[in-house]
C-alpha cells in the first residue's frame, strides 16, 4: 500500500543519519582531546638529599630543598629529627618564605602566616603547609610524600 504522504520522509531520515553520525564522530574526539591538553603530573614520589648537607643544621633552623619543581623546606626539630614541608601556600599556591627572625612561614601574596610547624595561624590560608615524610638511609635523607 502506498501512503499519500510519508510520515518519515527520506530527507529527514538522511539528515538524521548523517547529522547524527557527524555529531557522534565529533563527540568521540572530545575525550582524547581532553586527555591531550593536560600533561601528566611531574611531582616526585621521593627525593634524596645528601645527609652531609643538612647534618650541621642547628635545632629550629630551616633550609631549602627542591621538591620537584616546587620549593621544599627541611626543618630540624629540637630532638634532632628532620621535618619537611612543601613550601607552597595552601591559600592560592604562592611560594612561601621562612622568616628565621620570627620563626614563621610567610606568604607575601595575600599576607598568610604559618608557625614554625607549618600550622596556619593568620591571614587567608585555610590549611597547614603540606607535610612530607623524612627518613634516613645511609648517607642520604629520603623525603617522601606523607602516607
Amino acid at each position, binding site marked *: 500500500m502506498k501512503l499519500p504522504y510519508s510520515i518519515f520522509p527520506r530527507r529527514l531520515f538522511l539528515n538524521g543519519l548523517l547529522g547524527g553520525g557527524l555529531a557522534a564522530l565529533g563527540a568521540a574526539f572530545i575525550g582524547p582531546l581532553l586527555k591531550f*591538553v593536560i600533561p601528566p603530573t611531574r611531582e616526585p614520589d621521593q627525593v634524596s638529599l645528601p645527609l652531609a648537607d643538612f647534618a650541621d643544621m642547628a635545632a629550629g633552623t630551616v633550609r631549602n630543598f627542591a621538591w620537584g619543581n*616546587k620549593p621544599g623546606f627541611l626543618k630540624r626539630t629540637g630532638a634532632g629529627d628532620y621535618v619537611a614541608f612543601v613550601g607552597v601556600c595552601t591559600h592560592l599556591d604562592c611560594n612561601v618564605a621562612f622568616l628565621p627572625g620570627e620563626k614563621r612561614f610567610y606568604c607575601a601574596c595575600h599576607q598568610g602566616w604559618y608557625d614554625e610547624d607549618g600550622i596556619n595561624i593568620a591571614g587567608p590560608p585555610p590549611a597547614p603547609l603540606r607535610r612530607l615524610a623524612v627518613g634516613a638511609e645511609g648517607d642520604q635523607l629520603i623525603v617522601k610524600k606523607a602516607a
Partner: protein
Amino acid sequence: MNAFRAWIEERLGLGAVTGFLERKEVPRHGHSFLYYTGSSILLFLGIQIATGVLLAFYYRPTLAEANASVARIATEIPLGWLVRSVHSWSATLMIAMVLVHLLGISFTKAYRKPREATWLTGILLLGVSLAFGFTGYLLPWDELSLAATKVGTDLPRAMPIVGTWLTRLMRAGDDVTGDTLSRFFIAHVSVLPLAILALLGAHLFLVQRHGMSVPLAEEKKGVKGPVLPFWPNFAYREAGVWLILLGTLLTMAVVFAPGLGSQADLMAPAPEGIKPEWYFLFMFQTLKLFPAKVLGLDGELVAVLVMAVGMGLFALLPFIDTRPAERKGRIITALVWAGLAYALGMSIWSLL
C-alpha cells in the same frame, strides 16, 4: 575614475555596503559621547594587533629566554621600548574604554529588547579582552607575573566539580611551568585573536542591524531627535577623537614605560607587594579580605562563588531586566552604581 569605480562595482558589488553607510545616521543627544566608545576600542585593538605582531618578531616563549628576550626588546632593539610600552598602555586604555562602553550601556539600558544578543557578544568580548590581559601579563616571565599567574590560575580550583580540571587546563598540569608559558603565549597570539575577531564581527553586525540605541530620556522628548549622517560627519568626528586618544596613548607610553622584573624563579618565595593588573585589583583585594572560613565553608570557595555569581548575573542582565523599554529601571541603575562603587573602593584599598 568613474569607469574604474564601475569596474570594481561590477566585480565586488559593494554597493549594498556603501549604500548602507551613506544612509546610516547617528542620533544626537546629551549621551552622544557614548557612541564614540565603541570605535575607540577598535582603535586600541588595531594598535594591539600591530604592536603585538612587532613584539612577536623578537619575543621567545621559553623558560630560558622569555625574560631575556623582553629585556632585549626593551634595551637593544631600535624603538623596541616604545613598541612594548605602547602595547602595554594600549591594553590598559582598551580595557578602560571597554569598561566605559559597558557602563554606558548599563546606565542607558541599551541592552534591552531587541539587543540581548548584542549584549551577550559584548560580554564575551569583555571576557576575551580580560583573558588577553591575563595571558599577556605572564609573558615577560618576571617574579611578579609568575606570582600573579599562580594566584589567578589557582582561583578556579575552588569551584566545585570542574575547578581542579580548569586549573590544570590553564596551567598545563598541577603547577605553573614552562608548559604554562607556551600555553599562555599561543592563547595570547592565536586563540584569543581568532576569538575576538569572530565575536567582534557578530557584535558589529548586530549593532548595524539594530541601529544605534537611543536613551529613554531622549526618546521621550520628541518624535525623532536630531541626527548626524554617519558619513562623513560622524566619521570625521571619530577621527578627531582617535587623534586625541593617539596623542594620549603616545604620551603615556613615552613618559611611563613599563619596567621589567628579574627572571621568574619557580623555587623563590613570592615577592612582596604582588599586584595583578589594575582591572583585577578588586578581585585581588576581595580574596585578601575573605577569612579562611565563612560559616564553616572554605573562605576561598565562598569568595570565588560570590564573584562568579555576580558576574554571571551581570552577563544575563538583559534576561533579568526584561521590562519594556519605556521603564526607567532605577533598581538596575542603583545596582550598577553599587557594583562600580565596590570595585572602585576595593581597587583603591588594595593600593593603600
